[in-house]
């Protein structure tokens, strides 16, 4: 996985995995397959609740589909009965010269066949409509949740795992809905009808069938217990495979440049083998479950034959009835393999839903306020009110920071790596929440602002400028969806990106390709700057946003910034003195504290000041 698109928590402080993950909720323990009893129950219940929730919203559609399947099944089950009627009634009648019963049977058969065909077709469509609606619903839920969760979560969960939830786990559910769910309704109904038919036809044979259900239930219980563990393992193995795949393909340049192809392929082959073995285990289990059901079915037919045969020999039963009994019994077990397959995909989907429901259960550490304070027009006054902050359980980065930035002021932050500059930027943009104290915008705690309002007011541009696939225009328009072409061009022009965009094959309609492959790092930064210009926020936070620009580019940006920042608040973090030149105020940070604060000129003039020292060093390096 490329880490280029992941900004760091801070310069030198390293956040550890979020503490929330040590709890039993959410994605904690996601990689375990063997769960304790209690945990197992919780996880299963969570997974079933999600499935129930997804299907519950479509209760009516499900009922409609069930009706269709009842009609279709009735049509199909009528077959043997009509055959029995044909042989036992219509045949003797015909021999006696009465063709009427045969005509009736024939017409009924045709009607039953048509009803069965039409209803099953309508059912396939209805079932697909339900399945697809459920999948769309779940996809949206997962996507929304992914966007809702805080960066803290994303920093440890990895993109590969989210992709795995959205692809391979959803595929498992899809399989259940596609084949399984449609199959199970018709199978169960078919079997019920057949059983009822058999009971009506011959209660004794019906009892034989009833007894056969006992071993089938026991076998299924055994399968359920074992397969649950195996399917969990298979989900975990699949996610690992995806995580590795995504990471390597994102960083394929480095893999090739450092000749890691064969070593990496070897690692991957190990993961492939894990996944294969996991699949093989579930298959193996299934390979015992399925024939087991067949044995039960066939033995039942044998018993029905023996019991019925004896009664025929004793003259207690008609041959025609026995023929029908045997047909029914055989038909009853016809869908049992399908039912087994359904149960199999149900187990697989349950394991997948366990993972998905865990993800959905996660609560963002940076939460949306219940009752947001209004922020109609932000002026941009910032106050970091005795802020304390540390990443996760790591050491405190900002022990007690108190900082007022009046609306409209441009502040440059300098200081060594790890001083906490980026942390301040992230707190202002509310990528993280403070541990103590508060960050206030125009006097309102940012935690009380709706993210929509906050994001409109505060925009942060980082060093890692990520481009989405799509056109240059779409990428800039991300700053303000619905912006006109003129506005987009104006933003590009303001940061000096217009010229190079025009030089691209299709100008603003040029596809930036995968991860902006064809756009240089500097150009990416310019485009991401253009986004910020277009967004037009009250507070602009720039975290090393110009590091890859060439100097003429940087000059243009500085120039653009001078205009842009004239009437808004800005926090600029830069390692370069040049950026400091446009600031009204410079803050020098060290160890999470502000050690110098003043106008650039004042600080340069401060004797023995850190900034003065830095400045001297710069001057020397330029000489």
């Amino acid at each position, binding site marked *: 996985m490329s880490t280029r698109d992941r900004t760091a928590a801070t310069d030198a402080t390293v956040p550890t995995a979020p503490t929330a993950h040590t709890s039993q909720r959410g994605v904690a323990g996601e990689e375990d397959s063997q769960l304790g009893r209690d945990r197992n129950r919780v996880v299963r219940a969570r997974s079933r609740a999600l499935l129930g929730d997804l299907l519950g919203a479509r209760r009516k559609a499900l009922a409609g589909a069930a009706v269709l399947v009842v009609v279709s099944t009735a049509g199909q089950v009528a077959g043997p009965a009509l055959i029995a009627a044909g042989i036992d009634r219509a045949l003797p009648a015909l021999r006696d010269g009465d063709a009427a019963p045969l005509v009736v049977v024939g017409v009924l058969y045709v009607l039953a066949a048509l009803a069965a065909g039409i209803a099953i077709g309508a059912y396939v469509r209805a079932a697909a409509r339900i399945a697809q609606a459920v999948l769309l619903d779940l996809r949206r839920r997962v996507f929304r949740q992914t966007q809702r969760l805080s960066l803290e979560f994303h920093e440890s969960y990895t993109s590969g795992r989210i992709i795995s939830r959205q692809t391979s786990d959803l595929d498992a559910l899809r399989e259940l809905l596609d084949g399984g769910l449609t199959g199970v309704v018709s199978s169960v109904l078919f079997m019920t009808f057949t059983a009822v038919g058999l009971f009506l036809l011959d209660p004794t044979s019906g009892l034989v069938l009833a007894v056969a259900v006992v071993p089938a239930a026991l076998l299924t219980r055994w399968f359920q217990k074992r397969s649950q563990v195996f399917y969990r393992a298979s989900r975990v193995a699949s996610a690992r495979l995806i995580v590795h795949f995504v990471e390597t393909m994102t960083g394929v340049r480095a893999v090739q440049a450092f000749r890691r192809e064969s070593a990496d392929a070897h690692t991957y082959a190990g993961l492939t083998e894990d996944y294969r073995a996991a699949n093989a285990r579930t298959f193996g289990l299934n390979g015992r479950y399925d024939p087991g059901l067949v044995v039960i079915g066939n033995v039942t037919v044998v018993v029905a034959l023996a019991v019925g045969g004896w009664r025929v020999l004793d*003259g207690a039963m008609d041959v025609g009835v026995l023929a029908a009994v045997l047909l029914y019994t055989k038909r009853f077990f016809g869908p049992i393999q399908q039912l087994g397959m359904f149960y199999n995909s149900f187990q697989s989907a349950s394991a997948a839903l366990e993972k998905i429901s865990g993800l959905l259960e996660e609560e963002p550490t940076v939460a949306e306020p219940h009752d947001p304070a209004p922020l109609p027009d932000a002026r941009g006054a910032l106050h970091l009110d005795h802020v304390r902050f540390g990443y996760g359980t790591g050491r405190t980065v900002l022990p007690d920071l108190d900082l007022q930035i009046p609306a409209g002021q441009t502040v440059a932050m300098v200081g060594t790596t790890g001083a906490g500059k980026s942390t301040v930027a992230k707190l202002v943009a509310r990528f993280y929440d403070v541990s103590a104290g508060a960050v206030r915008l125009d006097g309102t705690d940012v935690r009380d602002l709706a*993210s929509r309002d906050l994001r409109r007011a505060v925009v942060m541009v980082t060093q890692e400028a990520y481009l989405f696939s799509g056109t240059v225009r779409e990428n800039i328009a991300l700053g303000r969806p619905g912006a006109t072409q003129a506005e987009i061009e104006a933003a590009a022009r303001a940061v000096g990106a217009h010229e190079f965009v025009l030089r691209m094959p299709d100008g603003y309609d040029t596809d930036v390709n995968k991860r902006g492959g064809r756009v240089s790092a500097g150009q990416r930064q310019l485009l991401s700057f253009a986004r910020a210009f277009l967004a037009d926020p009250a507070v602009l936070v720039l975290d090393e946003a110009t590091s890859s620009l060439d100097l003429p580019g940087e000059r243009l940006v500085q120039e653009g910034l001078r205009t842009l920042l004239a009437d808004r608040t800005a926090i600029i973090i830069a390692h370069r003195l040049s950026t400091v030149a446009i600031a009204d105020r410079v803050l020098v940070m060290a160890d999470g504290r502000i050690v110098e604060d003043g106008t650039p000129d004042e600080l340069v003039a401060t004797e023995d000041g850190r900034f003065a020292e830095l400045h001297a060093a710069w001057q020397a390096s330029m000489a």
Partner: protein
Amino acid sequence: MSALARLYPFARPALPRLVAGMVAALCASLAALAIPRVLERVVNGPLAAGAAEHDTGALAGAVALVAGLGLLEAMFIAVRRGFVMLPGTHVEARMRDALYRHLLELPVAFHDRWAGGQLLSRSMSDLGLLRRWLVFGLPTLVVSTTTILVGVSILIVTGGVLGLVYLAGAIPVTVIAFRFSRRFRAISRLSQDQSGDLATTVEESVHGIRVLKAFGRGRDALDAFTDQADRLRRTEMAKASTQSTVTSALTAIPELTLGVALVVGVVQAANGQISVGALVAFFATAAVVNTPVVDLGMTLSMTLNARTAVDRYFEVLDTPNTLTDPAAPTHLDSPRGDVELRDVTFRYDDAPDAVLDHVDLTLPAGTTTALVGLTGSGKSTLAMLVPRLYDVTDGSVLLDDVDVRDLARHELRTHVAVAFEDSTLFSASVRDNVLLGAPEGLDPPAREALLAEALDVAQAAFVHDLPHGVDTTIGEEGLSLSGGQRQRLALARAIAARPRVLVLDDPLSALDVATEEAVEKRLRQVLAGTTSLVVAHRPSTVALADRVAVLQDGRITAVGTHHDLLTHDPHYRHVISNLEADAAAHGLGEHDDEPAPAPGRTEHA
């Protein structure tokens, strides 16, 4: 099917087992088919005689026979599973590994073009479909087809006219199945492609989460994603609609056929042309045949989906690698490290204009050259040509007068190491990340020494403060590091590779001035004796170099020392002349109206 024939190389080791599995499947279905025959015999024989003869022996025999056949069926199903399942998973794993290895071999240009989600969906979803088809679909297809063929034959042979009636029903079924296949294939392809695109969107929405959050665009991203997912849903509905039609037909037609057969059969029986037992047996057999016909719709669509998956898979696997090792690679024992770009032209495959246009540049062994030019002038592209991550369109890149295309890539990349501008780190320990390209065959102490030195040069002492020091897992699955920290590790990695030629693409951009100075001091010692190409944006980086090459409009327009060029080259002055220097020279905060460094470009007042 030709697409499935391509599976042969992957399936070959598994073939005997697969074939055995099919045979077992056939035996299972034969056993299933035989059961109604036995039932017929027993109904016609002892049972028709009924109470009069009371032939319990014959009945017991029949019961035993049916029991035996029933157990045989189950046993053969178990055997089939045993034979087919393992090979099925092996075929999948082999194909997955083959695809992965191919993807690692394919040049960077390929990866620029292909979205991640499309590759992932081929590796996971498509091969998953194939596995399930191999394990469930293929046996079902074989069994269904055989059951239908054998069953229909039995019906014709034993049923006479009734058999012909049944056969007549098979004609529309075949036609409908055929037409369905054609329609379904097109939709199935569309659906699988759309799934891949959806995966790409998911991947980007996570990789770009910071941008989406920073601009508060989560809602818009969700809307766009919903549109895309809804398109996929509509495709799936179109697929279901096709399937619905065929399922209707495949259910109704065989049943209708049976209805007709019933009427005909009863008439025949009434006329004494057929026995009651034969009539019962006919319907028993027909019931066995009807089930696979009804399921044929499902089996067919599974097969068609698998075929699409195979098509999509081979589309990537068949992509020829345009950047390969020579048939007879030249070997450089201990290269001096002379690098020359001779008349190099480079154009991206799908771009109209060349990025590099007849570039000539020599990097004498042991010297450090800074490459300077405006953003987007092709500096990084040029740098990537040296380790041959891209191939030149025209001209050649030479290492010690040997065309890099005449060297094995593995050897070339042993001699040449790169630090990319966007420092890619992997989910692994600091140690593994830094020693990624370290020379092979070093003993542990030597590796440790190498690690220590590289970290020291790159001023990456911060790693010792990590929870587990150099054994801390970093990258996506581990700790996140800052841009500057990652850049230093990427630099350390390039240094630890101990190359003859070092390519550094803007390696210090994210470092603060103090760290940059410290890195440079140490780097200069390391670079002594190593041929280096340093892409530079700033004078401070240029300071590393013995000389500077200026890249402008795809050409090298000047080569010289920093000071020479500053004096004589207006473009260089424009590119590199330092705002910082200006600011430093003229005092901070006094944005006076000094003349612009290059005429007509900037007034920074």
